């Protein structure tokens, strides 16, 4: 089986779960004798695959950061143009004989829809997030929604990363639930090392990820416990978050790391005592699996996709910062809780392999190609 897969990021060039997913998925598919041409925008790095039946094909010169919320109209205009340019390039550059086209999220959907016609091949679409998630359900942008809706309608099969996302696709985009399959994400285990007294937030600093709730909880924890809080990542909320920490009077206990390299990310997961993912809207949340795979007890938002499938983590409502603080303090104080959670989650995390994701994806392919 030969697949034209269309993405927009691939490690080490990645900002989100989509890149991680494409990496794990394509490599495990390749191991299952599916041959893949992986198309993506050209990056500063030159990407190569070490697997024979996985070929990375960079298209054009565009680097796009689709998760930033653009306040500036001029920037936004350039951004939309760049997206069109990438999709146009894809339509021209993707040629040949494929059994199916598989694209990921809104950024590649326009090309996916045209390529389906051009190559006369069925279209599979994986939805990692929707505009509703990225906007934190505040003022979702119609322009994105219309692209997403068209892509979902034209796709022969849709893979959603959680039941939560499947519900959004059905309820908000009016898509027939029968053509949607839920495939939860996986993780390449990071491994453990010695812990420091650090409570970690790691993710894009955007409204979707709820970093302001992390800081509010930090304030409550610091009244009772002496610990350090680390906010790792960049995003449009960074200046506001720094001000928030100052206003809460906790800036001496909160460290903003800025952008981290992949190695630094692994390191911070390993040395943290607790990972918190307080997302307002989280289709899946691979970072939770990454933290857990580093032996770090994890608190996640109840509505996050990962909450549906992973038992051995703590769950909170993202807005309930009292409860979030209660759980952080409990984890800091009660050794037995930390120990049991990391032991139990170590066993459970072994079920979350990319091989399983690839297997389920192949099942979806077989249904149409």
């Amino acid at each position, binding site marked *: 089986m030969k697949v034209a897969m269309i993405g927009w990021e691939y490690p080490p060039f990645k900002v989100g779960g989509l890149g991680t997913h494409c990496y794990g998925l394509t490599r495990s598919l390749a191991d299952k004798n599916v041959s893949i041409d992986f198309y993506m925008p050209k990056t500063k790095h030159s990407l190569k695959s070490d697997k024979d039946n996985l070929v990375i094909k960079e298209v054009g010169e565009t680097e796009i950061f689709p998760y930033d919320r653009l306040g500036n109209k001029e920037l936004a205009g350039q951004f939309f143009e760049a997206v069109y340019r990438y999709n146009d390039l894809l339509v021209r550059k993707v040629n040949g004989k494929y059994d199916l086209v598989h694209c990921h999220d809104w950024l590649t959907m326009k090309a996916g829809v045209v390529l389906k016609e051009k190559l006369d091949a069925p279209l599979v679409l994986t939805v990692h997030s929707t505009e509703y998630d990225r906007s934190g359900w505040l003022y979702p942008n119609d322009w994105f929604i219309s692209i997403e809706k068209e892509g979902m309608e034209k796709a022969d099969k849709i893979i959603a990363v959680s039941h939560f996302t499947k519900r959004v696709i059905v309820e908000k985009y009016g898509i027939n639930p029968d053509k949607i399959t839920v495939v939860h994400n996986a993780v390449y285990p990071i491994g453990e090392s010695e812990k420091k007294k650090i409570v970690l937030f790691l993710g894009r600093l955007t409204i979707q990820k709820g970093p302001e709730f992390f800081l509010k909880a930090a304030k*409550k924890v610091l009244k*009772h416990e002496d610990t350090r809080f680390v906010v790792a990542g960049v995003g449009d909320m960074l200046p506001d978050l720094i001000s928030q920490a100052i206003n809460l009077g906790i800036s001496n206990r909160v460290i903003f790391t800025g952008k981290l390299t992949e190695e630094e990310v692994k390191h911070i997961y390993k040395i943290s005592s607790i990972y918190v993912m307080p997302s307002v809207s989280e289709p899946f949340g691979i970072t939770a699996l990454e933290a857990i795979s580093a032996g770090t007890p994890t608190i996640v938002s109840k509505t996050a996709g990962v909450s549906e499938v992973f*038992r*051995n983590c*703590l*769950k909170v409502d993202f807005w309930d910062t*009292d*409860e979030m*603080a*209660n*759980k952080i*303090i*409990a984890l800091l*104080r*009660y*050794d*037995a*809780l930390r*120990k*049991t*959670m990391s*032991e*139990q989650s170590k066993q459970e995390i072994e079920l979350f392999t990319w091989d399983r994701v690839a297997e389920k994806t192949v099942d979806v392919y077989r249904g149409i190609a």
Partner: protein
Amino acid sequence: MTSICFYFEVHQPMRLNRFSVFNIGEKNDSFSTYFNHKLNQQIFEKVAKKSYLPTNNLLLDLIHDFDGKFRISFSLTGTFVEYCERFVPTVLDSFKELFKTGAVDLIEETYFHSLSALFDNLDEFEEQVKMHRQMINRVFGYQPKVFRNTEAIYDNRIAKKIEELGYKGIITEGTEKILGWRSPNFMYKPVNTNLKVFLRHYKLSDDVGFRFSAHGWPGFPLTAHKYAHWLSCCEGDIINLFIDYETFGEHQWTETGIFDFIRHLPGEVLRYKNLDFVTVSEAVERYEPVGEIDVPWAISWADEDRDVSTWLGNDMQIACFNELKDIGQRIKERGDKDLLYVWRLLQTSDHFYYVSTKGFEDGNVHAYFSPYDAPYEGFINYMNILQDLKQKVH
């Protein structure tokens, strides 16, 4: 003749309030802040209506219909009787009425349905057995002859203590772990003391308690006719069928046909000339031990493991248990009666059950009975309460 010994466990725990780390040290009254009295009342009233009252009425009718030939035994925990007295006194009245028929026997246990038998010494355990004895004497004017520990937790040490306390029999699980090839359908004697041990026939008991409405089970649908036939085919002196009382109408809803099953069971059983019903006291008089059992490590009737790992199986449970023990010593030194009562309510095994992290299959049963979404939630809540109590006795 093979005797059917039906025994029902009747218990409700005092479920806890949500208690966050921020509540620790607030210096509020423990009894009113630790326990969720509203929820407990709601659940009790619901179960009374769905299970206790209709089942008691049905059993009373059956005892009359069969002229006392249908005989049963109950174990009522102290917390259960307190609930009755506080919220639904008619439930207790109906148990008294059942007892008056003479076809109903009562079993002793720890007042608080506690894990006190697992403490380093058995003083607290003994006190709780005596509290239960006093309660049964006060309410029913009766002194039970047979003892059953919380969740049938049993070992040689407990057996010895129970003999010392003057009981004639003790109930536990008929697990292969202690029986090997031997049948549970006889009385046994503990290796170290002179007592009669009743061994629960777990397969036939769980057929009713767990599998009654399981569609995938080959025995489904279970009718009284079929079940009586199975009983009649058993060899031995006594078949011990020990079941949670809430099975009737609560774990197994009315719609499953559980009440019809019970309604027809005495008639179907008594059709067989080789079967009759006995209470636990009668069984102790009638049957002699056929062999010895040696139980150096505690067993129970819970989960697949049939040991105490359901309550003390992970680090969180052990941390709670150790904390609980330490606090108890301080409370006893201080002699504060209110805190002692609260401490004892916190010994109820259910609080530990909610913190169990056992595998998926058992985990599902745990999830059904737990007020928490996860064992970790149960741990944090319970441990926070223990920390508050600890501060109070410092």
